[in-house]
């Protein structure tokens, strides 16, 4: 987790003109994904999440300031093109970093890691509850949809909206009530306002060295570029 954060910072600190440096970052991350034995599909489906941001960034060269150049008859701002490249490259690389982290680390280990990094207990508890109950709530939603369909409600865009919105409202109330029952169960086992800490083994030195090697390599390259300027 620390390694991922340091890596993302390295990527952000990379000057946008340093093309070959981005290539190095990409090479390092691709090596990491290959080492982790992720399939191409696994990585690509997870990269889809950045598409909306990239679409928004596409406006930059169209409306950007400064000197312009013609591409296929459309006037594009050079400044804007650089900004687009900067966003696209950094977003993709940053995302790749978090894919490596999320793909190699169990959610429970991530939470325990946050605990060890002294993230406030309330935050990790909330994240833990979210992870724990997302399946339960999703299951309830699926059953509700099945029940709606079984009584003749079919997906027609606008007509579907009203009952669906009611369903989401009902789901909210149900989840709220579940929250109360969970609290009762917690109180019954002696909960008095603070969550107990996760009991975890500290990561061995070898793990630290291995995981930090990736971002350190990236930082060395970044530092070299900044010094050369």
């Amino acid at each position: 987790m620390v390694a991922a954060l340091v890596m993302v910072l390295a990527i952000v600190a990379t000057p946008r003109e340093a093309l070959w440096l981005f290539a190095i970052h990409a090479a390092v991350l691709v090596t990491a994904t290959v080492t982790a034995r992720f399939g191409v599909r696994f990585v690509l489906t997870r990269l889809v999440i950045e598409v909306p941001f990239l679409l928004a960034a596409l406006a930059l060269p169209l409306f950007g300031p400064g000197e312009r150049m013609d591409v296929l008859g459309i006037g594009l701002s050079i400044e804007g093109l650089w900004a687009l490249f900067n966003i696209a490259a950094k977003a993709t690389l940053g995302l790749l970093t978090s894919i490596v982290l999320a793909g190699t680390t169990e959610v429970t280990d991530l939470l325990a890691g946050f605990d060890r990094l002294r993230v406030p207990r309330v935050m990790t508890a909330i994240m833990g509850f979210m992870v724990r109950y997302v399946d339960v709530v999703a299951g309830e939603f699926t059953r509700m949809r099945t029940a709606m369909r079984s009584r003749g409600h079919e997906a027609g865009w606008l007509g579907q909206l009203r009952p669906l919105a009611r369903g989401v409202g009902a789901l909210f109330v149900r989840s709220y009530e579940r929250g109360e029952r969970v609290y009762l169960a917690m109180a019954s086992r002696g909960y008095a306002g603070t969550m107990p800490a996760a009991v975890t083994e500290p990561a061995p030195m070898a793990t630290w060295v291995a995981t930090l090697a990736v971002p350190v390599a990236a930082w060395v390259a970044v530092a070299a570029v900044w010094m050369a300027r």
Partner: protein
Amino acid sequence: MSTPTISVEGLSYTYPDGTEALADIDLHIHAGERIALLGPNGAGKTTLILHMNGILMPQQGSVAVTGLRLDHRSVMEIRRRVGIVFQDPDDQLFMPTVWRDVAFGPQNLGLDHDAVAARVERALDTVGMTKVAHRPPNHLSFGQKRRVAIAGVLAMEPEILVLDEPTSNLDPASRRELTELLTSLDITQLIVTHDLPYAAEVCERAMVIDEGRIVADGTTFDILGDQQLMRSHRLELPYGFSVPPR
């Protein structure tokens, strides 16, 4: 007679909307007993068990657990002594892994790491769930979740185990395994259930609660055999069942 494990005297409770949930309840449960609490929906069963560990405080009357009277000072100790297993295990298993969930209670007791680990391992071993210790609860089957929920309560080392509808939603095999587990435990138990054959199988004594009152208290066979009593409190054996003559 020795100090009862649970002693409830003159307990009454009225909900804020004026509904009278419990009216002048008296009951005693002694160490080593396994008792069924029977009654129709809305009879006050859940309200009663929520008084036993101080989630609800008595408005009138008193609750005492092995001689310790329930009040605001004793409530934490009462909650350790009375372990409640709730109906929906998804409500009870809220931590990211089985191990951490079972550890939740002992950690709240302020035990050190080794003592917590020892209790977790013993509790998981008792319910036969040691092999799933590091799995997240949402990956377990319903029957496994129920067992882990029981382990989480056993890890508190309570003096009485209160189970709310333990057989609900279990398939017949899981139900039988639960019977084997509960009858093997050397602990006082109060089992709230609609499952009358189960009550007959597991509990020697039964109480019937209806409209907030205890209306019968005796051996499970006598109660299930009293057709007049059963009919008047909306209790029915499933089709094809009858109490064997003795």
